[in-house]
């Protein structure tokens, strides 16, 4: 599905990604964990074509996408739910969702399908239906996150990138969001790359994981193995202290 080979990228003058390689198989949930500033968001933005890649190769279903403009990348089936949700506050919930299908509107002739998808989004996220005529800026954080996910799904992506969907949300809301992510894979077969600081929750629903540290992949493996890995536990899961305290 997606293959990244030795990608490099700069965030300003900082060398933010150093020869990062990773891959996703169709229908997988893969998580990318790492501390603040490890380069997770930079990696997603490089994939989306927002930050130019300085060398390396990105293959989406075998097609090179390095150097393509962001709108081209979306049209090839890769959508991103950006960090901090970034919904269009002054626009209504419904308009936000419609804009998710912007490229499909522009290519024409899909009006009925898009309307169908809109109804489906309202089924998946009933809260959004109640608020469809409300400005997106008036929604709660959790609702905005659902809207941001719904907006990305309206493009019918084959690969969905999620950047910190749990950020700033209450634990119960985070659970809801993670359930939705699992449903997306099981019901729609969407391939998902999930970036999270909440490493434990992410590893629990993921098939595989990559650990990113200062722009490099330092560890990769099955999610279950990473959960058990001592280094990962110490650095990202905070198990050590708890265990000592429990014993």
């Amino acid at each position, binding site marked *: 599905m997606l293959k990244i080979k030795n990608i490099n990228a700069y965030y300003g003058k900082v060398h933010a990604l150093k020869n990062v390689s990773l891959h996703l198989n169709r229908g997988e949930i893969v998580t990318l964990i790492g501390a603040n500033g490890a380069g997770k968001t930079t990696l997603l933005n490089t994939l989306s074509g927002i930050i130019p890649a300085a060398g390396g190769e990105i293959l989406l279903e075998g097609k090179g996408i390095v150097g393509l403009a962001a709108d081209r990348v979306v049209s090839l089936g890769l959508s991103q739910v*950006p960090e901090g949700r*970034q919904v269009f506050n002054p626009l209504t919930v419904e308009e936000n969702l419609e*804009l998710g299908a*912007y*490229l499909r509107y522009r290519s024409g002739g899909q009006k009925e399908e898009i309307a169908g998808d809109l109804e489906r989004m309202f089924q998946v996220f009933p809260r959004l239906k109640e608020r469809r005529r409300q400005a997106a800026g008036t*929604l709660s954080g959790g609702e905005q996150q659902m809207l941001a996910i719904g907006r990305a799904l309206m493009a019918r992506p084959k690969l969905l990138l999620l950047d910190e969907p749990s950020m700033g949300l209450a634990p119960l809301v985070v659970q809801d969001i993670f359930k939705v992510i699992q449903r997306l894979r099981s019901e729609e077969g969407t391939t998902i790359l999930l970036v999270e600081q909440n490493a434990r929750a992410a590893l629990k629903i993921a098939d595989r994981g990559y650990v990113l540290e200062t722009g490099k992949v330092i560890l990769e493996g099955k999610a279950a193995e990473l959960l058990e890995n001592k280094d990962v536990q110490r650095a990202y899961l905070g198990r050590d202290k708890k265990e000592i305290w429990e014993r």
Partner: protein
Amino acid sequence: MELLNQITQFVISGLATGAIYALIGLSFAIIFNSTGIINFAQGEFVMLGGVFTIFALNVLKLPILLAIVVAVVATTAVGLAFERLAIRPLKNATPLSLIIITIGASILIRGVVMLLWGKDTQVLPPFSGNTPLEIAGATLLPQHLWIFGVTVLVIVGCRIFFHHTISGKAMRACSFNRKAANLVGISVGRMVLLSFVISSALGSLAGVIIAPLTMTAYDVGVMLGLKGFCAAIMGGMGSGLGTVLGGLILGTLESLGAGLISSGYKDAIAFLILLLILFLRPQGLFKKGETERV
């Protein structure tokens, strides 16, 4: 009674000029929203509208409506070329350098028009005669009706475009959050181009419908542009309705001031208002608190 009639007269002609300021203000706001720059060549688009119409009417001998269409299309082409040649190539320029470029472009356009058509003031005949209508003791020219009619049509058109078409919604999304707009597949460059097209079309339309009342020359764009800018500032740059109200208020105050105090102060009144707004309410006259949750 005499004074009351006079005031009605001033208000009517003030609203007509105000409607023009509103249209120019809208064209400022559209470009500002999509690019974050103030296009100081906007007044030149207004001037081009008038000048092209006169050219199409007198030289090409076209009927008036066709001449107007030709003028608006030609000005829009200039706006499009301006964006392609002067704005787009500078991908990472700061807003300030882009604004300076628009000032340069305005001087260039004015110079070219002066060379081609000379410095003389030119007259565009009113679209449908000069027989005044009597309303409440004041006279209303048929051209005033044209101005009000076109302005209402443009406002309704803008409303439909920005709220009921996908391109309009995309432009609003883009002006709120470029990165997120980019991530749903909206091409920012395309939106910027579209904003230049729409705003040069609006500006030229304003120039065409005012030309029969004020006459036109290579340099009328400077003052009209600044007044339109003033209207946009009164509306807080972002709001369409605010800009329209700002334009109408500005036109009315200007006309009342010119009529009741002295016509020599006409422009001074507009700029006094501009300064007061910038000092006291830089967010615009009508802006409410933002409803936003983080």
